[in-house]
């Protein structure tokens, strides 16, 4: 006989498993209702006043030659001086590193006078030589032109005859000469850099700069720390430290604001703004934004060498399809429901805040929400509904689109839900693909539609330049400054005209015509201009300058006004507000009671049967 040699092991320990499950249930349930706290370093309660700002967007690079994201460029505003700046009151050009500027009679030679009282944080004076070197680097090294190359593409020669004179010679007139949003870097530090495409300026701290703040420390997705530049020519900032702390979760940031761990939180949801608005010591700022929120369609990604790439849906190359899709988007509902009134309905490319460039489509041109008309347009274009109610192209391919959505942006997901239903009625399928980082498929052209948005500067040149053919990538392998692979000859022609137009009124007219053209192509469909919804603690920040000064925003300004001007409140101590924790307990309470009851009951059962078990 074969002996039973191996006894079956006890089928796990049931007690342990049940306990584990219970714990898992408890932990999940609690973590689901509790605020997921970030592992923030609360160690340095250093002396003096710290202004802590909650941010969520990752830094793409700390190198001013590569940085394009809003967080990075906002920080560069603080760390480096630009030739000129924008007035906080009305965004007109005011002196920055340059104190004065004069064009030649033919407007092809611009002479800037560089201020003498600006020094780099390592003690060396900031001179015209630094500015000339920065521009020359961007003109000669394509890698250094990644972020701001549109400004220097038309430069013929940049020289510094002496320490306080900078001379820029142009190939053609250029309208942006008093709005060159290019951080000027110290030559003596940056001339040692080898490959500009790889150098991210985040190894050696403090980073030498001449702005109102000096970057002293940076940890990816954890924090960026800045100290005031005591010798800043416009006057040193009032706070002793400025910290941008990462909260990838909006609720965690708001909870931190309520507890006084951070002084400022941008990008609130309507519900958060409403809840914070009723709280003591917190001021909610609801200001017209400088962003647009758009629906971008893949126009068939192409490189400058003419090679097409990506896998965008072919039907989107048909202007009628693009038109029909946008006809079926109800912008008023989006503003009412998704933004809950904290936005303005989208019209042209440039937000109404920039009044002189703001453009609206004419009545006949406007694609007003009209699903019946959208269906008619599609019928006429040959995309008829099949037996399943799906629209099919002549090639037999159904109109099933994908839309790239930022997983971190609740608005994208919410608008995606609406689009699915509106387009579903039209017979058009939509798959919402939410990714943490959309840049990968985006750069490869592997998308049909995408949620898109840019912050617009007082000078619109940059946001217009990203839709010109010249910004397409060199080859399908490269990445260009282009936003959405748009290459339209008519748009390019107008862009070239406005770039050389010095007459403000004529230039504004050209910019409006560009927006009109862009509207007609249907490549960029502006859905809304979201407001800046932000909040700060009044017991930590006594006063702070918005831009524009009357009813403007604080986060992402065209300048360093908000953080430079912020004055600490006299007793900037940790004002623990118990109101917030009461709310949390309101939420936690029922869940905790249920869990405790379940736990006690299970434990008792377990005890009563314990001797039977093991």
């Amino acid at each position: 006989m074969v002996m039973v040699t191996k006894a079956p092991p006890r089928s796990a320990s049931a007690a342990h498993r049940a306990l584990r499950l219970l714990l898992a249930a408890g932990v999940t349930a609690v973590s689901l209702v509790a605020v997921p706290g970030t592992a923030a370093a609360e160690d340095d309660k250093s002396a003096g006043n710290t202004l802590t700002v909650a941010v969520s967007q990752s830094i793409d690079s700390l190198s001013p030659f590569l940085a394009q994201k809003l967080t990075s460029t906002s920080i560069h505003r603080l760390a480096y001086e630009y030739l000129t700046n924008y007035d906080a009151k009305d965004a007109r050009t005011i002196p920055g590193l340059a104190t004065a500027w004069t064009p030649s009679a033919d407007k092809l030679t611009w002479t800037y006078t560089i201020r003498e009282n600006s020094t780099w944080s390592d003690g060396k004076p900031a001179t015209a030589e630094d500015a000339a070197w920065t521009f020359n680097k961007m003109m000669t090294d394509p890698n250094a032109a990644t972020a701001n190359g549109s400004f220097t593409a038309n430069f013929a020669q940049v020289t510094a005859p002496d320490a306080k004179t900078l001379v820029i010679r142009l190939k053609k007139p250029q309208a942006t000469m008093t709005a060159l949003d290019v951080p000027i870097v110290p030559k003596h530090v940056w001339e040692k850099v080898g490959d500009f495409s790889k150098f991210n300026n985040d190894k050696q701290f403090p980073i030498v700069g001449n702005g109102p703040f000096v970057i002293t420390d940076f940890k990816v997705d954890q924090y960026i720390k800045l100290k005031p530049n005591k010798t800043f020519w416009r006057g040193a900032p009032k706070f002793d430290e400025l910290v941008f702390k990462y909260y990838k979760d909006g609720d965690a940031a708001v909870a931190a604001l309520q507890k006084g761990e951070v002084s400022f939180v941008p990008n609130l949801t309507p519900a958060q703004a409403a809840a914070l608005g009723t709280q003591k010591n917190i001021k909610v700022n609801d200001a017209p934004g400088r962003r647009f929120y758009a629906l971008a369609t893949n126009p068939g990604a192409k490189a400058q060498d003419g090679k097409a790439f990506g896998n965008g849906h072919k039907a989107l190359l048909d202007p009628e399809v693009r038109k029909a899709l946008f006809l079926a988007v109800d912008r008023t509902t989006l503003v009412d429901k998704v933004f809950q009134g904290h936005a303005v309905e989208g019209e042209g490319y440039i937000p109404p805040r920039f009044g002189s460039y703001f453009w609206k489509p004419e009545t006949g041109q406007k694609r007003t929400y009209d699903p019946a008309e959208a269906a008619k347009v599609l019928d006429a274009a040959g995309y008829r509904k099949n037996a399943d109610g799906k629209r099919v192209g002549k090639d037999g391919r159904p109109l099933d689109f994908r839309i790239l959505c930022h997983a971190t942006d609740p608005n994208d997901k919410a608008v995606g839900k609406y689009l699915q239903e509106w387009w579903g009625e039209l017979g058009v399928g939509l798959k919402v693909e939410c990714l943490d980082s959309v840049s990968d498929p985006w750069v490869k052209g592997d998308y049909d539609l995408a949620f898109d948005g840019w912050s617009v500067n007082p000078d619109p040149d940059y946001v217009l330049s990203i839709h010109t053919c010249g910004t397409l990538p060199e080859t399908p392998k490269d990445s260009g400054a282009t936003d959405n692979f748009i290459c339209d000859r008519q748009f390019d022609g107008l862009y070239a005209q406005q770039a050389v137009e010095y007459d403000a009124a004529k230039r504004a007219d050209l910019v409006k015509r560009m927006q009109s053209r862009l509207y007609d192509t249907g490549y960029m469909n502006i859905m809304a201009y979201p407001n800046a919804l932000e909040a700060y603690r009044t017991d930590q920040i006594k006063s702070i300058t918005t831009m524009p000064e009357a009813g403007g925003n604080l986060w992402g300004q065209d300048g360093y006004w908000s953080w430079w001007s912020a004055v600490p409140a006299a007793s900037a101590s940790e004002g623990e507000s118990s109101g917030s924790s009461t709310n949390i307990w309101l939420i936690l309470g029922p869940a905790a009671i249920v869990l405790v009851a379940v736990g006690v009951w299970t434990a008792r059962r377990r005890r009563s049967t314990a001797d039977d078990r093991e």
Partner: protein
Amino acid sequence: MTSTEPTAPSGTTASSGTTPATESSPATAPGKKKPPPATASTPATKSSLTWARRRSTVARFWASYRTRRAGLLGLAGLALIALLALTAPWTVGADVQSVTQAPGTALEPPSAEFPLGTDQFGRSLLGLLIWGARISLLVGLLAAVLSVAIGTLVGIIAGHYGGWFSTVVMRITDWFLVMPTLVLAIVLATVMSRSMWTVVLAIGVTSWPTTARLVRAQTIAVESRPYIERATALGGGHGHVMGRHVLPNVMPLVLAQTTLGISTAILTEATLAFLGLGDPTVVSWGGMLQDARDAGAVSSGHWWYLAPPGIAIALVALAFTLCGRAVESVLNPKLGVSR
């Protein structure tokens, strides 16, 4: 092994080996009285005998299960939730998901019209909670079944073949066992496209090692019994032994494991959806919590948006655990058979 070993009755093929296999199963309370033979009035055929035996096994199982109050409670809870989920198309309707036809305004507190208030689109949260049960339960069931299926397959194969093959397979199992399940599931859900099936797959392929270990141990125990040797001697191959003898004997274990696994799977599904890794376009409990977070409900104090899905998840997980434990103790005589 000698020739004096009793052989199977003449006329039966090796396949009739199932009969002793199920009856002598270590999991079905050995020593209990044999099931009564088929009624004498009709001549007993092989299949009617089998059915009679199965019926009586189920009856015996139920009689034993019925004595466990916690198990009954769990079962009642499950039946209620399943009923709500299955009748949802008629009670709340698929329209409850629609954002364009939402009846309310954003984030209304509970009222007579909306007993649990509304979400940021103005949809009824009670309706969404009921509708979300469908996805949560479905994903939980599918993921648990997938996980247990993989675990059973790996366990039986490893236990049956033994030797270096078993060692290699079990080392792979160990590797999965020590990997943090949630982290692995997050990685899988991130790299694959966002859909319900991704979540099912992510949970399924990460949570099988426990089952595999249990099943392998049981397989070894079953295969060391004499009747397996008999079956082999009568010409039963690997497939026959594994499929006809081992599988029916590990089934009770697998059943209990599945029931317990569902609650884990539902929790994991909710966690993944809460972390934003689920399909954002379908309504599930975890997804509702993620939506609540997107709307800023936590910091705004909108408890009616957060508490119900969280409590629902906890209750369903609890119900499945109670059922699973009851099933386990009925099927495994070593666990409190006296009760």
